[in-house]
């Protein structure tokens, strides 16, 4: 079997695992209708059984139901963050590369400013300081939007930098110059000629970025900064289950496993897309 066929198999396998996870997150709660917030006080920290297929946590809440809703949170946050990163990051990067001058200066300096902060620190700070009041004002969904926002603020500069670089090199190419000579305006040049040529890069880097965002959300969740009760997230489930790991280690194992499978499948899909791009 040659390498490219092996690659294709890896892509198909990782993409289908990812697809199954997405379907589980979207449809799961409709099929497995157990309430993730219901406390079954007769079954605390239960091992897997017919009543609780994956057991229950220290308040007797069903682990499978919580896993499904946590998966939903992870994927929803990842989706919002990538939407923001693609629209704002790619948009600003395109504008900076195409127009140059002051636009480029402002976008590049703003990106540099955010690059100065190592990784998640700024996201931790933002979601910690604004979390409680956003939660009080806009509820659980608002809180998740805040988490997405803080991760997106950290995430867009890299996308902007990639797209800016690509746009700069495209701008010098002959086909752009000749289209301009034929009388095309900025709008047509960007929309019909530059955008389609940076789209591949945007899709690949957004996919590769998802793994980092999922881990980022889980980290914020672990620190108690993401979803709040009765909502849950994979990171929060892990943090809570750490407290009684000596009594029932499966409760740490299941959310960790789900998170690892999610992160690995997204990384593989991103990696394969990059090889093909």
């Amino acid at each position, binding site marked *: 079997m040659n390498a490219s066929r092996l690659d294709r198999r890896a892509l198909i396998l990782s993409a289908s695992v990812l697809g199954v996870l997405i379907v589980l997150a979207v449809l799961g709660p409709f099929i497995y209708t157990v309430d993730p917030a219901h406390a079954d006080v007769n079954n605390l920290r239960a091992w897997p059984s017919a009543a609780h297929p994956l057991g229950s946590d220290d308040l007797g809440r069903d682990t499978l139901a919580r896993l499904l809703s946590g998966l939903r949170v992870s994927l929803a946050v990842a989706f919002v963050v990538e939407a923001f990163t693609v629209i704002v990051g790619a948009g600003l990067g395109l504008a900076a590369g195409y127009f140059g001058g002051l636009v480029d200066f402002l976008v590049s300096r703003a990106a540099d400013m955010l690059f*100065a902060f190592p990784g998640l620190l700024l996201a931790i*700070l933002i979601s910690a300081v604004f979390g409680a009041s956003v939660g009080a004002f806009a509820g659980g969904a608002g809180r998740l939007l805040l988490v997405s926002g803080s991760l997106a603020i950290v995430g867009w500069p890299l996308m902007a930098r990639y797209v800016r670089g690509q746009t700069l090199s495209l701008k010098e190419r002959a086909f752009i110059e000749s289209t301009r000579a034929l009388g095309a305006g900025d709008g047509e040049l960007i929309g019909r000629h530059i955008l389609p040529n940076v789209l591949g890069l945007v899709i690949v880097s957004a996919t590769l970025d998802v793994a980092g965002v999922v881990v980022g959300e889980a980290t914020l969740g672990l620190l108690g900064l993401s979803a709040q009760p009765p909502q849950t997230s994979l990171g929060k489930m892990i*943090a809570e289950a750490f407290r009684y790991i000596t009594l029932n280690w499966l409760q740490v194992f299941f959310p*960790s496993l789900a998170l690892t499978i999610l992160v690995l499948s997204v990384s593989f899909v991103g990696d394969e897309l990059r090889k093909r791009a």
Partner: protein
Amino acid sequence: MFFAQFVVRRLASLVFVLFSITFLTFIVGYLAPGDPVQAMMGAHRDPDTYARLRHEYGLDRPWLEQYTGYVKGVLRGDLGKSYRYAGRPVWELVQQGMGTSAALGLAALAVSLVIGLPVGVIAAARAGSTFDRLSMIVMLAIFSIPSFVIAGVLQIAQVTLFKAGLPNLPTSGWGELRFWVLPVVVLSGASTGYMARLTRSTVLETLDADYIRTARAKGATPGRVLVRHALRNALIPIVTVLGPSVAFVVVGSFVVENVFRVPGVGFIAVQSIGTRDYPVIQSVTLLLALTVVLMNVLADVAYTMLDPRIRTT
């Protein structure tokens, strides 16, 4: 001439980075919701005291003035006052965790160096071997699997091994050496993986160079070529990975300290969120970001000293 230009450019970018970090931390604190003075006073609503406290905390000044005041304070080592413990300097609260965090971080960094570098070198020297492939898969795994997942696996293993009669490695708290083992191992994971993989690729690159072929042609033994010729040159780019490795350790310490309940700055910061004592987490973020910047500067200086070529570019 060129060197002076290089230093000036580096200093200018350093100033910009320091400005960015202080400005972003300040602005988040400035925009923080709620009125801390109101919260502090609770039911007492004496307008005079209110005005006095607002003035004392500098909250009545325009934002630009507050920012310059903040930077001046930071330069003097004054991180402002705690909202929760009225009048108590934040520095005092944060300081309690600094020794612990520094010890944890340095230990993790040392473990990364001691394991990451040799694994990378051996993998490069035996590129394509079973050791190479296996170790690189393991290194990729510990780099990309989140630290708290690894922490969970180790805790489960520890519980099982303890039952089997092995010494107890505490999964919570801080104290004598046995408390250090699990947090340090978990914290060193990402930087070990990163270092090993980067070392492998730089050593591999160096092994391809002409002077290596020359050394081999002159009859130097493989070990001598590896240590005296390849490693010495490969070490130069490896110095620069110290910066990113410190960043992994610093961000990771937030997670590890909270998972293992190690009373470092990351633990103190997360505790302060519950009591809405924002200046504490603000200061911890600032200090950690500055640590990473400082290590990057040190790595840059070391790089310049080790490699004369960089001075002329």
